[in-house]
């Protein structure tokens, strides 16, 4: 292959590498800061001197978390909700998106209208809550998964992808006598790995980061996902007036215990860690070089 050795190519290289390094530094800093704080002594954390490496190295925070019992259970909860939720999401979204990407679909405009309107008009918290309760989903995992089964943004992205697949493939299969369903399974799906992994990742992260639904729909705090626990800790740290004004020694004690910066950051790091691990695995599925592209000609 002929390599481009021109000046413009070298300039491009400089630009690329400078930007990448800048990006690395700027995004690694907060991560290292979180990790370092979680491994630093509480005196160092209080003094605010920790930057990107631990000062007064200690594993106490992680030890306390693993012993204390709230975090491991919440972690497992989060994993379950994420896996189940994402599966449901992908099934629902892709089927709908594929159907609507086919221009010959009857009632296509109707379906699109149905899908777009809720992006703007929504009944709000109370009617949704009442509905979920009336369906018997209160205090169940499904209250977190079903109401958000299809994200309209993700649906649109998937539909765009499906629409971008070249029509020739479909047509030749249709001429060979395949019906819509066979086309979907034999031709479309194998070519859609990238979008499935991308949207799957979007949904998964959405589940992993969510806490609001858990807060309103769960009665037992033992079902709380990790983000809820994290949020409690971070908020507790900020609502000092509340903590101190509690007359009651017992209540105040609970809050003081949580208000340790190192503990907070250790929990934060634990919540970030899975995502660190996940992407490298997914990336290899964004395969290049298959007959794809939405260019004509």
């Amino acid at each position: 292959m002929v390599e481009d050795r021109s000046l413009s190519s070298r300039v491009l290289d400089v630009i690329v590498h400078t930007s990448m390094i800048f990006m690395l530094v700027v995004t690694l800093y907060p991560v290292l800061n979180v990790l370092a704080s979680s491994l630093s002594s509480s005196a160092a954390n209080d003094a605010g001197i920790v930057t990107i490496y631990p000062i007064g190295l200690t594993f106490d925070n992680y030890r306390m978390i693993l012993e204390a019992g709230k975090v491991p259970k919440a972690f497992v909860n989060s994993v379950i909700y994420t896996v189940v939720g994402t599966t449901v999401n992908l099934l629902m979204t892709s089927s709908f998106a594929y159907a609507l990407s086919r221009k010959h679909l009857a009632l296509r405009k109707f379906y699109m209208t149905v899908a777009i309107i809720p992006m703007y008009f929504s009944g709000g918290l109370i009617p949704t809550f009442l509905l979920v309760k009336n369906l018997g989903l209160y205090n169940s995992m499904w209250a977190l998964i079903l109401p958000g089964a299809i994200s309209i943004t993700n649906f649109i992205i998937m539909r765009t992808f499906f629409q971008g697949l070249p029509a020739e493939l479909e047509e030749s299969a249709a001429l060979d006598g395949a019906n819509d369903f066979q086309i979907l399974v034999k031709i479309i799906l194998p070519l859609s790995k990238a979008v499935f992994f991308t949207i799957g990742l979007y949904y998964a992260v959405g589940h992993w980061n969510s806490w609001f639904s858990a807060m309103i729909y769960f009665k037992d705090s033992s079902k709380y996902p990790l983000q809820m626990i994290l949020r409690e800790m971070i908020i507790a740290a900020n609502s000092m007036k509340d903590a101190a004004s509690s007359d009651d020694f017992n209540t105040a004690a609970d809050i003081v215990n949580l208000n340790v910066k190192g503990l907070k950051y250790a929990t934060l790091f634990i919540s970030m860690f899975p995502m660190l691990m996940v992407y490298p695995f997914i990336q290899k599925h964004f395969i290049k070089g298959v007959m794809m592209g939405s260019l004509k000609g």
Partner: protein
Amino acid sequence: MHRAEQFTVKNKTDGSLKSRFKNLMIQIYKTRYLQLLALPGLVYFIIFQYIPMYGILMAFQNYKIRNGIWGSEWVWFDQFIKFFKHPYFFRLIRNTVLINVYQIIFVFPIPIIFALLLNEIKNKFYKRFVQTVSYLPHFISLPAIIGMMVMMLSPNGGMVNNIIQALGGEPIYFLTEPGWFRPLYIISDIWTSTGWSAIIYIAALSNVNQELYESATIDGAKRWQKMIHISVPAISPTIIIMLLLNIGKLLSLGAEKVLLLQTPLTYETSEVISTFVYQRGLVYSEYSFSTAVSVFNSVINIMLLYIANTIARKLTETSLW
């Protein structure tokens, strides 16, 4: 023969309702597998999106939880008027829209450029490493990352001011300057969302036909030419869709980050619609008022989206509908 044509019904009808209906039924049957595929989605939308939609009526009422929707008093447009008449109404709209416009101008293109540049990296490990690290800030919970930012901006010993002083300047107390609020907001957005938003463009780029690049090389195209003439058009449908989706959110801006960056000295530029509603909600749960504001936002957003979508459809081949 194009596929779609196969299914277009020849206009042999007399236009009557009965024959149109019959045609519809035939088409539905012809696309029956697709209909089946679309069914779960449809059911989902009806149950979870349309049934609760009656909540919008709250905007026209003086909703009280104890009375429910059907028992609450109807005040029609009073809640909207309350919002419009508020002395800060224009300030809120202006701040919300400006931040969103800045986001589209300054934040939106960055992930695209990042994805294009990343695409130029040949070393797989390096590429994967940069990409993974780049989206990590998205996972650091917002209060923590803004807390870091606030610390860095401190006029006493914050990293940024240390650099400024080292270069001979005076420390700037960023958080108290109304003029700095929007730039800080945008910067924090770029910081936390670039890597994450780039994922979709990277995925789109990975789908581009390699042969196109190869034939362009043979034709003597330079790298940056390939980038502009092949990569960009290849992902332009994605870009346009994402742009449209962003325009459709012009009046919506979440309160969380604003509240974290906001200080009493920057209300002039930092009070947005969502923080305004949030502050009121702390004193008194006003479901009607916040629903009315929501409806107002949605109406404007939809109008903007409609305009943008029409333009997109006319100028390009991509649009939302």
